[in-house]
């Protein structure tokens, strides 16, 4: 599902320049849940952002669900994001002025969204038990509810790839567990899930764990303890 080769990304400039990704490769298969672990600042989120076409690599290729991501124009990329990617963020990024339901259905309103996306979205809300939360505004909801809405939002357009960047970073134990279960269940036959985390539980539930070392991905053992922040 995901095939990335030789990704290079640098932050900072001049003497403060840092290559966070230096020829990283990533392969994720259909139905797989991959956890990317490691210390913060090592570029895990960066890798995710590149795969999700939220940022551009300086070098390397990315292929998602058969589509090339690198080197495409912004207009093409926005379509790509809509069709192929569902993203879940650490800080939820729900629009405060909209209700839970409106937030979830936001992608369904985009031009080019498939028919039936809205029904699908409502169905998702029901299935995830978010009916009550859907009527409220984000500031009235707990972190767990917000993040679950965010996951529902990410799945509204049925993307083949679900990317989650520290999804439980702002949640307590219980909510975090619920969200993780959700992510796990999202990895169906047609979908791959990549989760960036520093938490042991997340890596525990993943099929495969990798880590970034010197800008490159390496297989890693599931975390036993919380990785250093």
């Amino acid at each position, binding site marked *: 599902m995901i095939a990335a080769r030789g990704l290079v990304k640098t932050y900072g400039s001049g003497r403060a320049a840092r290559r966070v990704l230096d020829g990283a490769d990533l392969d994720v298969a259909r139905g797989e849940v991959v956890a990317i672990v490691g210390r913060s600042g090592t570029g895990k989120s960066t890798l995710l*952002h590149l795969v*999700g076409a*939220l*940022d*551009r690599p300086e070098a390397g290729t990315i292929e998602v669900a058969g589509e090339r991501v690198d080197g495409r124009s*912004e*207009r093409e990329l*926005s*379509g*790509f*994001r*809509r*069709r192929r*990617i569902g*993203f879940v*963020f650490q*800080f939820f*990024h729900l*629009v*405060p*002025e*909209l209700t839970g339901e*409106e937030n979830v259905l*936001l*992608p369904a*309103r*985009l*031009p*080019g969204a498939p028919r039936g996306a809205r029904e699908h979205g409502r169905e998702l809300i029901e299935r995830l038990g978010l009916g009550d939360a859907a009527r409220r*505004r984000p*500031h009235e909801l707990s972190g767990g509810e917000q993040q679950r809405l965010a996951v529902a*939002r990410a799945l509204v*357009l049925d993307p083949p790839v679900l990317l989650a960047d520290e999804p439980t970073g702002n949640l307590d134990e219980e909510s975090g567990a619920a969200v993780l279960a959700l992510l796990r269940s999202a990895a169906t036959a047609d979908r791959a899930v990549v989760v960036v985390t520093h938490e042991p539980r997340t890596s525990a539930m993943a099929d495969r764990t990798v880590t970034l070392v010197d800008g490159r991905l390496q297989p890693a053992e599931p975390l036993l303890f919380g990785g250093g922040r």
Partner: protein
Amino acid sequence: MTGAAALLRGALRLLRSGRRRTLLAAAGVLVAGAMAGAALTVSVGLGSGFDRSAERADLPDVVARFADQPPERIRARITALPNVAAYAPRTEIANVRLRAGGESTRRGSLQLVDTTARRGYAIVAGRDLPRTGGNTREALVEQGLARTWGLEVGDTIEVGRAGPVRIVGVSIAPDNVAFPLATAPRVYLSGTALAREFGGELRVNQALVWTHDRSRTDVTLQQARATTYGVGNLRFVTRTGTRLIIDQAAGVVVALLVAFSLVALIAATTMLAAQAATEVGRRLAVIGVQRALGVPRGAVAGEQALSAGIVGLVAGGIGVTLGALLVRGPSGDLLAALNETPPGSALLLPLAGLTVLLGLIAAVAAGWPAWRAAGRPPVALLRGGGLAARAPRRRAGGPGRAGFLGLGARLALARPGRAGATVVVLAASGGVILLMLGLASLLTALRDDPTAVGTRYALTVTAPAGGAAAVRRVPGVADAGTRVETRGVDSFALGEPVKLTTFGGDVGRFVNPPLADGRRVQGTGEVEIGTGLSTALGLGVGGTLAVQLQSGAELRLRVVGTVRALQDDGRVAFARSDRLLAADPSLTPDLAVRLERGADRAVVAARLAAIGATPTNVAGATTSNRSFLDTLATVLRAVALLDGLVCLYALVQALALTARERRPTLALLRAQGAGTGTVLRVLLGAGLVLALPGALAAFALQRLVFAPLVAQLAAGYADLGTAASPAAVAAVTAGFVLFAVVAAGWVARRVVAEPPVHGLREG
């Protein structure tokens, strides 16, 4: 001193840190300053133009015109008057043929000057006629004539029977407007030299009188009137009377322009204040950091104030200068048409004052919110993205309906303070634009439509069978009533012409010029007289007007009010018809016809002709001189252009701020797959929610505040409504929408130019 120096350094640092933002803010100040500077230039130039030029030209306090008299008799009479400081005799010969450089006119006015006396004009080029008399081959021409015909010092001009004379100087005298606005261009020759050459004595028909105490000129005039027996066809004009004539000729427009400029000035300063406050909104994070570090509140606010003040001063100064330069040309042309001089260096001080004012406003407008923000806990400020992510207060009704436009609207409204400030700016600027459009249509109205100057009836008709009732039934006619108009002279052989317009019934139905003194006519035996007549006859409220009619009968009416009527140099009188008809039954009344609002005069006239009522058009009041009106329109357009830029800038800034604060939301949308179009829709929604209420508020502001204010300021000259037409309102609204689209497009481009991840990094 170190405190102040530290403050200054901090302020400069602030400016340097967000260089692009500073420039953007400066651009806004510059535009507002340009508008204010243009407005101030116009106001100062036109508002004080007459007084300035009158001083420079040594304008006499009284000019008396009369039938030719031997000079000694006039000198004896004038020097017997009290309060006379100086006296200059002059001979005016009208309808002299002038020819120069391919141009000619038959209506030249030749002024023979007594060179030993004061002149009452100022030389703007070349030199004056010498005191000793000079020779008869030298002449001065008025500036209007020189400009229009392209004459210069040294050229030759043929003056009637005097033949070709050499132009040695160009003069202006603000006691009348310039050629071609005035139909008779003035040329000056040395009367002293002529008298010497032809060995005779010039008969005098003008006396220029300067008084010791200008406030007691009326006493001098009173004595002059009382002693003018034997002098025929006498007319007096005082300096205030001259001013009246100028106003009448140039129309109410001058006063309106000045009033409009004042309004524009107020709008510009409002915008500046709103903008400076908004800038502080951007800098809340900086303030939060400073406060977290323990910088005292005063220093924080002071830095913000100082940085805004510096921008206000520098950018404001440049803007003010630019604005002043922009209108200098058209404003100067306008002044020249009025025989007035440009303010020149007299503008420097007001412009400098304006710059300082702009700086102060910016400083205060930034310092005050900064002070308030600095009083809040730093944590709230450091969260960034605005004055704390307040929970949206109201329940907006579902985005389902309006989609991304609605979302954008809600994003903009999430900051009600800033939204309000932007709407205020748009409303003020929009109101000014509407006012200007109203003024422009007023110019044409003044030219063609008599109702603009207090004459409420547009047609007069001979009474058909069926009388006034039949006329009233014609569609388009709002009212019709009998009118008797006649010309007479004053009863005391002063030779003053009086045009007496009387109406059966209430006079106010048909004429409504602005009141200068006293009250309107209410009953029989009362009359309201034009200010021209009042000055000429020395008649005030409470006096008695005695008119000698053509039939020989005399009519006496009590003066209850003085009105500023623009027709016939103000030598008009309005009253009820009964006494006039009693004095002269041979006069035949006609019907005055008042049209309904919006009715087409030509159409109604045709209808009236069809029923046997022969119509005649009633003329409007001001000059129909095209170039003058064009100049006025140019001035208006220049200010409007600047104003439009301000509107555009306000919208761009509002949207840019929204985009910046809601960067995460926009980034999120893009992460979801929203393309440029969607981002544009969101921003457009934000823009429209500001632009449309702004247009509405602009309309309300113009109608309820600006137009009455301007009309009030110019009320001394005409009774005006400057309400904007529906077309103008539609145009401004459409313009605002267009601005919203342009602003949204511009900001959207900038948003989409960076990868979404940057927006997502923030909380």
